[in-house]
């Protein structure tokens, strides 16, 4: 199954009985606070334009109340947009009829929720096949699939437990298994891991990354945690007060935050895990250019991994090589450490500044 991307274009959401009427004022620059004060309407989303790549993980990040849940619920239209388009495989989700929408939700999307939202009266297995029940797949067939996914998320042996007999982390595994059983192309995860404690969270991130490497779904992942965003996101969009204030790769956001708000987020990040060698490498000179005997590090390796390799190998200089093994640059220990600790503003290459 080839994954399709999701295009969100010119999306506005104004909560309130007469949202339509206020779109124009918002377009003309009325702020969220002003709209609330003057017209008692809440600005949920303002002019959202994001293209979410097919087969990749797009992370939407922002503080509480910034509109993350509102945004993700437009993709399967749990919330009706005020204006705008959500395109998937050439069709506008916002224009689908009730029936088309139901089919779209059944076969193309699956969702994982912050509060798990499992059915308490169903066992783990019965919860896992819930989406298939809705599709009308007979149990004889669906239980096979259900068992497979329960095994994949690491819950074998718990098929007949009820949700209230499981820990939070285990319940979210059920939520994930339920979503995966659907075989849907789009996987929507609204703060799926926010209720979990840090260790289990990292564990679940690994589960998702492992599965994603194989399944290549179009994942939309919501979080308010930058570390999580950077670990998972092929692309990250940052929301504030219903507006996208920056979107791009994790590296781009860490290296060139669009404003102070994002900069303050980024300050606490472990840069070594985000920045990749090619961003901070220098042109080949002398010793490294001579090739033989210098440790090669492939493009795409993070600084932390490089540092590990250098320490282990006891070298102070490495050669950066492209995917084909061609040397493209070099990096010495000093600039490596420098890039890991200092704000990299002055060393950002011009190609990354624009987005």
């Amino acid at each position: 199954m080839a994954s399709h991307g999701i295009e969100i274009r010119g999306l506005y959401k104004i909560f309130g009985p007469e949202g339509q009427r206020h779109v124009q004022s918002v377009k003309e620059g009325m702020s969220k606070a002003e709209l609330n004060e003057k017209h008692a309407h809440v600005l949920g989303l303002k002019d959202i334009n994001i293209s979410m790549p097919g087969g990749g993980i797009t992370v939407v990040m922002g503080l509480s109340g910034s509109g993350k849940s509102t945004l993700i619920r437009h993709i399967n239209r749990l919330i009706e947009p005020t204006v705008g388009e959500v395109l998937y495989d050439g069709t506008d989700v916002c224009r689908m009829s009730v029936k088309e929408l139901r089919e779209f939700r059944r076969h193309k999307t699956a969702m994982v929720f912050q509060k798990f939202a499992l059915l308490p009266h169903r066992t783990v297995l019965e919860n896992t096949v819930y989406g298939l029940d809705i599709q009308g797949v007979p149990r004889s067939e669906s239980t096979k699939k259900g068992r497979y996914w329960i095994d994949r998320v690491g819950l074998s042996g718990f098929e007949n437990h009820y949700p209230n007999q499981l820990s939070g982390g285990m319940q979210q595994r059920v939520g994930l298994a339920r979503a995966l059983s659907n075989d849907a192309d789009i996987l929507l995860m609204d703060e799926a891991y926010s209720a979990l404690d840090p260790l289990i969270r990292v564990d679940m991130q690994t589960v998702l990354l492992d599965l994603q490497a194989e399944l290549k779904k179009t994942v939309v992942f919501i979080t308010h945690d930058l570390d999580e965003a950077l670990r998972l996101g092929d692309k990250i969009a940052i929301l504030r007060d219903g507006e996208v204030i920056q979107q791009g790769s994790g590296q781009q956001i860490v290296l060139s935050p669009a404003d102070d708000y994002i900069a303050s987020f980024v300050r606490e990040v472990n840069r070594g895990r985000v920045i990749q060698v090619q961003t901070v490498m220098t042109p080949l000179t002398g010793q490294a250019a001579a090739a033989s005997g210098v440790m090669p590090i492939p493009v795409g390796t993070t600084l932390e991994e490089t540092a590990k390799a250098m320490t282990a190998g006891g070298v102070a200089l490495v050669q950066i090589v492209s995917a084909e093994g061609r040397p493209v640059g070099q990096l010495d220990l000093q600039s490596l450490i420098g890039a890991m600790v200092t704000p990299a503003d002055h060393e950002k290459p011009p190609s990354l500044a624009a987005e």
Partner: protein
Amino acid sequence: MASCSILPDVLCSFPAVSDSYIRLARKTIDDGFRGLVREYSHLIDAVVQPLQVFLNALERLFVNSPWILVLAVMLAIVYLASRSIAITIGTAVGMVLIGLIGLWQDTMVTLAIVTVATLIAILIGIPIGILMARSDRVQGAINPILDVMQTLPSFVYLIPVVVIFGIGKVPGLIAVVIYAVPPMIRLTNLGIRLVDRDVLEAADAFGSSPGQKLWNVQMPLALPTIMAGINQTIMMSLAMVVVASMVGVGGLGKNTLQAINNQFFTFGFMNGFALVAIAIIFDRASQTFGKRLQKHTEVVHG
């Protein structure tokens, strides 16, 4: 009254509309009503007939089956519902005592009518409750009716029922159902409205149709509340069955009424005991069943 000598007459004794007017009004309304009833008699028969057949069949089944068989089935049902040995033994003891004091037959008659009344109340109450939960307008329209129904003293129900359906077992049954149905409706509505919004959203996100949402999510999650409604309905039917004996319902209620009229103290006491015994049996069995349903819906991990 001393003050009456000072006050004008109008203020002293209430100036009622003259008797002849009232007589005329009563006659007109009563005749009109009777005419209406006569006109729709086939419709009324259509309602009464199947109820009559059903009630008679069940009553015959209960009364004519050997007591040991009835007791065995009852104990089996109580055990399956409650999974409690204590409640099952209690049921056995209660029923044996009822038999020993010679009230087995009457108890069977009462059980039959309470069973039929409860079934009808469930059949009527659950769909109405579902409709109410789906629409605030329906809820707004039905709630005041239920309020009135629940504030009316039980005797008052008998008046329109007797006028429309006459005297007999089925009119009694109808009065019992009308009296016992409000908690069924209310608690079905409440149970569905209390279903967790997150779970409903999940149902939507997976593409449930309204029917799938009702059967997969709303009804199962509302079931413990609905069970509480059934429990209350049973209790109210039992209470009303005694009152309905005034319009011709037999069984323990009729005996109680006789005992009151004739001051048969012991007889009244025995019937009262039998009523209390079956009330407790129904209550315990349906409540423990409801609790068992609730087992998995309780949140252990937040």
